[in-house]
């Protein structure tokens, strides 16, 4: 085992330095930062679009007095709900024809409210009317009631926390951590697919296979790629924190997970390493069978889709802790890290994580072993002659049949 790790480290060190000191690595680091920059720029624009452009417009052709009452009603409603109104009210001259207004280009009116507050008429497409009728009726009722509308004063008593709020907050943290874990794994683990192609193209695989166990080659390559991923994550996280601090300030936007931040972040790192190694060991095994980069590209699509499936299995069951489907996501090795990080946000029990990690690493070892066997059989052309599991199974079946 010591020799295996030593050999794996030799391979890992070569791969890691080769990647880190390559020009392409700069692009690798910059790549994910571009969306971050674009996100900052687009964020303000997006918010403005959300507040202004995307809200449906209701053209009002009531009398000036009634139109004012309607606007007051909407403002009152807004003060009660502490949120942006779902619709925009826009006044037009009383008596304007609704059909003409709706057809007028540049106005972008969805529906027109005409008639009077007592007998309002809403004109528009069926879908728009269905969507806005409730809001308009509510605003109109408040406007009609005016000062006669009784206002109930609610006395408030503030507490620091509640179980409902806590659960929701932790659920949010769990979901976000899960998405981040998945995105990072998907971005980075796929790179392992083409990892063995270099060795095969450069004919170095023969030198490696003659000197060290193939397990050490696989393990070393995974270690190198994992280390490279952590370098990338460190750079991206630092950049994100820096940008956040500059634009938002020094405050943490997410509610604390059940385990507390230090332990949760540690578990997140460990689960990322495990998810990466699990998928990486599968990918390196599959990728090692590919003879060319084109083969690798061909198999990358089904691989990505499979990854998405694993994530969905975990994601759909975040709020169903302890239920059969969630337990399935925990037990299935490829979705287990995603399911467990969501658990870490919602529960402070540490033992399940230790058990899950042991289970996941068992699978890592198993998948590497299978990958190595396939590699030796199909690439190094070793162990042929029908001595494999399936061959023996076929022989057994044929013997039992005779």
């Amino acid at each position, binding site marked *: 085992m010591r020799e295996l790790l*030593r*050999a794996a480290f*030799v*391979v890992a060190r*070569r791969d890691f330095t*080769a990647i880190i000191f*390559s020009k392409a690595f700069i692009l690798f680091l910059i790549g994910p930062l571009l969306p971050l920059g674009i996100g900052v720029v687009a964020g303000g624009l997006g918010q403005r679009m959300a507040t202004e452009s995307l809200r449906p417009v209701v053209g009002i052709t009531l009398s000036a007095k009634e139109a004012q009452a309607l606007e007051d009603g909407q403002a009152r409603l807004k003060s009660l709900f502490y949120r942006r109104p779902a619709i925009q009210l826009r006044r037009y001259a009383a008596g304007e024809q609704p059909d003409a207004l709706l057809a007028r280009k540049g106005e972008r009116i969805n529906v027109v409210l005409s008639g009077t507050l007592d007998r309002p008429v809403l004109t528009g497409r069926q879908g728009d009317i269905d969507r806005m009728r409730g809001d308009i009726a509510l605003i109109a009722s408040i406007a009609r009631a005016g000062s006669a509308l009784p206002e109930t004063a609610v006395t408030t008593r503030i507490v620091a926390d509640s179980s409902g709020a806590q659960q929701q907050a932790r659920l949010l943290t769990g979901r976000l951590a899960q998405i981040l874990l998945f995105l990072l794994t998907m971005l980075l683990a796929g790179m392992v697919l083409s990892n063995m192609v*270099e060795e095969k193209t*450069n*004919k*170095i*695989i*023969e*030198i*490696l*296979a*003659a*000197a*060290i*166990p193939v397990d050490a080659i696989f393990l070393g390559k995974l270690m190198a790629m994992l280390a490279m991923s952590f370098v990338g994550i460190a750079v991206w996280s630092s950049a994100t924190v820096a940008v956040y601090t500059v634009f938002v300030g020094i405050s943490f936007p997410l509610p604390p997970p059940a385990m507390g931040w230090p332990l949760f972040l540690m578990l997140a790192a460990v689960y990322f390493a495990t998810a990466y190694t699990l998928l990486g060991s599968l990918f390196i095994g599959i990728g090692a069978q590919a003879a060319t980069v084109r083969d690798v590209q061909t198999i990358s699509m089904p691989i990505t889709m499979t990854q998405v499936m694993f994530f969905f299995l975990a994601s759909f069951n975040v709020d169903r802790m302890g239920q059969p489907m969630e337990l399935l996501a925990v037990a299935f090795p490829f979705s287990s890290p995603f399911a467990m990080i969501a658990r870490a946000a919602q529960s402070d029990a540490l033992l399940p994580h230790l058990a899950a990690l042991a289970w996941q690493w068992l699978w890592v070892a198993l998948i590497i072993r299978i990958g190595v066997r396939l590699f*030796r059989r199909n690439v*190094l*052309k*070793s*162990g*042929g*002659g029908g*001595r494999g599991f399936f061959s023996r199974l076929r022989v057994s079946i044929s013997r039992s049949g005779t």
Partner: protein
Amino acid sequence: MNGVSDPVSPNHLSYAVEGHGLVKRFGDFHAVDGIDIAVPVGSIYGILGPNGAGKTTLLRMLLGIIDPDGGHRRLLGEAQPLKLARAIGYLPEERGLYPAMKAVEAIAFMGALRGLPLREGRRRGRALLEDHGLGEAADKPVRALSKGMAQTVQLLGTIVHAPRLIVLDEPFSGLDAINQGKLEALIRRQAADGVTILFSTHVIAHAERLCERIAIVAGGRIRFEGSVGAARDRLRPQVRLETRRSDGPWRAAVPADALVEGNVWSFPLPLDGIEPLLKALVDGDAGIESLSIERPGLHDAFVAIAGAEAARDMVPAIDEEDGA
């Protein structure tokens, strides 16, 4: 130069490489079909055979890169060669190095794979490169080196950890005559230091000049195993006789199946020696212009042992090798 720690003492071994009944099949094709091989410790041993004879498969099996379908092997007394990787050096037929790696780093990396600390590998790598006239190339990336230089770098990477057994698969392939000479010298130096050398080749001249023992492989089987001399002794020496006269009573002394070109006769040395023939020629007034007895070369022996078909791919002399 001290080797890396080595669990097997050479004093207790007679053979550095042993293989018994080795079989390797690829589907229905028997690449190696029951080969026995024994390479004495400290010897230079050549495996000769045409392309597709099974030489590379045999070496890969012996080294543990692939597992045999039958038979067993021992390298330096160990059945699992990877356990003794530190004592073995291997140059595969298909040369390969990381193109972006510096020459000295490539050598150190190959040493590190076999247990040599990187720092020591770099130190030895520089010294080896200097010794082989490549000192200036030490810090150049492999992609900037010529093919011959890159091949030398890989060879130095094969010996940097001071192995006790060096396995070379077609080491002369692709080298020009000068580099082939250098490689021969390097092999001889290693052997003089007590290192066992096992190499495969299809260039008979290299085997003839370097090897103490050879194995002739064809069709996945060993057709001959022994010393170069013993292989050549398989054929009787050839008599080349040139006479002034083309006929006479002396003709009865010349074998009926002798090859004739004008007044030049070629035939195997008679079993009873040269004297009776010489007497018959003189007494019969053949008018001997010249008479010589030529010992057959290894190529002739190869043809006789493995057959003309197998010999077709073989290169008799270095001059006929590509790039030479």
